[in-house]
């Protein structure tokens, strides 16, 4: 690999969405040679066939231990690999472990060249976790909407209320009981099922 050429990067990640987010980030930053591996069978032979300069792997992946084999001097390992941990740069490894990503580099690649890639990785991984949290929140908000709608239906039927009246009743009860509307709605559903 010459100095001005873009290093070849392999992303090992079973999450296709996270890998895509990372891949896109790397492309935007001008790294063109990025390959994603999502299949963990024969991981090492796949990596050797691609012969990358940098390997990025998520920490939820048990196959991280497979990569550790590349540190060993053996016939199977073509180019010795090191993990990107700079003893003088504790903050950088801390940040990457916190974000959930780890980087392995092939011997000879300069530290200055891997640092921006790892930084990008960390920020994209963090962005992905945020996205996941938001998704989980949206999903639970949707679930709550469904529960409230069902509770409203029960109130309308049993007490002959309009939809608006049913909602007002739910809301005022929640305020009085210092609970969320969703919780009150859930207890109405549970109670009505018990009384069936």
């Amino acid at each position, binding site marked *: 690999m010459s100095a001005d050429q873009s290093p070849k990067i392999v992303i090992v990640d079973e999450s296709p969405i996270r890998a895509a987010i990372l891949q896109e980030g790397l492309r935007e930053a001008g790294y063109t040679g990025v390959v994603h591996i999502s299949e963990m069978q024969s991981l090492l032979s796949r990596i050797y066939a691609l012969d990358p300069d940098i390997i990025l792997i998520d920490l939820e992946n048990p196959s991280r231990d*497979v990569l550790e084999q590349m540190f060993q001097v053996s016939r199977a390992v073509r180019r010795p690999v090191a993990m990107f941990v700079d003893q003088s740069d504790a903050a950088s490894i801390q940040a990457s472990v916190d974000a959930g990503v780890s980087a392995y580099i092939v011997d000879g690649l300069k530290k200055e060249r891997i640092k921006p890639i790892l930084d990008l990785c960390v920020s994209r991984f963090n962005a992905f976790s945020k996205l996941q949290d938001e998704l989980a929140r949206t999903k639970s908000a949707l679930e709550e909407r469904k529960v409230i709608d069902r509770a409203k239906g029960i109130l309308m039927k049993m007490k002959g209320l309009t939809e608006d009246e049913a909602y007002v009743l739910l809301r005022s009860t929640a305020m009085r009981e210092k609970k969320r509307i969703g919780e009150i709605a859930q207890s109405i559903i549970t109670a009505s099922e018990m009384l069936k």
Partner: protein
Amino acid sequence: MSTALHIGFIPLVDAAALIVAVDKGFAAAEGLDVTLAREVSWSNVRDKLNIGLFDAAHLLAPVAIASSLGVAHVKVPILAPFNLALNGNAITVSLALHAAILDELDGDRFDPMATARALARVVALRRKNGQEPLTFAMTFPFSTHNYQLRFWMAAGGVDPDEDVRLVVLPPPFMVDSLASGQVDGFCVGAPWNSVAVDRGVGHIVHFVSDILIRAAEKVLAVRQNWAERHPDTLAGLIRATQRAADFIEQADNRDEVVALLAQPERVGVDSDLIRRTLEGRLKVSPDGTMRESGNYLLVGREHASRPDPAQAAWLYAQMVRWGQAPFSGEALKMAMSVFRPDLYESALKTSAQPAAAGAIGAFTGPAFDPDDIAGYLQSFKVSRQAR
């Protein structure tokens, strides 16, 4: 007021003492509020311990030594003041390889020398027939599994780096890989050997206690600088873990221990497999053949919990034999000082116990002498040692 601790572990039966110490309330009784974090890779456990996300960890004994020596990775001095388990691994091979070994076997099938020589003949035959070399899996480059597998096959004349392929595979993938023919055999801890036998895809050829009578398997690992800053917390943790180890070894408590370990957020496998492991009574063949050994897995009995520096020396000698580390007297001293019987004894207020006779007890080769590692290593024909 209690002290909060984060401790990492891998879901294996040999994390039992740690899990029971927490879930049975022994740690709380020492004023420790422990959160156990279940991890998916040894690399994660090592890194999180190294950078301080974990205060302590269930760790492969050789990883604690490699970390302290800075071999293949960042140098972070680690101490092992408690030995979580001795032995507990087994070597399992596919149905096809088992049949091939039995065809070539000249002797007792439980004699590791006989099976290793048979394996050598199978390897030679495959080469003659132009077949692919056999693939064996183990869990980590710095693992007892790696060294036990190498020790066994090398005794029969098989060079683990030249004659077969030796690969790292995460334990949960072992059985599938054996079933699909990706690997022909593996050395792994419980419960995975039993899972392979139960699924009818493998035979357990050896308990590792056939190969070495006593081998330090997993340790309770802490950073040296953490241990120095928190001596009382560490002593409390050692006492809680010892109490748990003693509890586990009492047969009356077996049901409770099995139930604690089988919880999904702990080891999370079938309780019958956990029971067989703790009893050292394993089904070794799909036809239902059982085998029992009092040495299969030692958690607390026979002074198993006391870290023995001679064990650390043996593990370091394996790193040297297989070219992972160069030999030096200084490194040997450093490796031995990772295992800290003094911290163990002072926490438990016990006096020094004599080291168990034949601390390693290998089935072949000279008796291990930490004071003459060079001489010991010279006696092995197959070696990757940098000379």
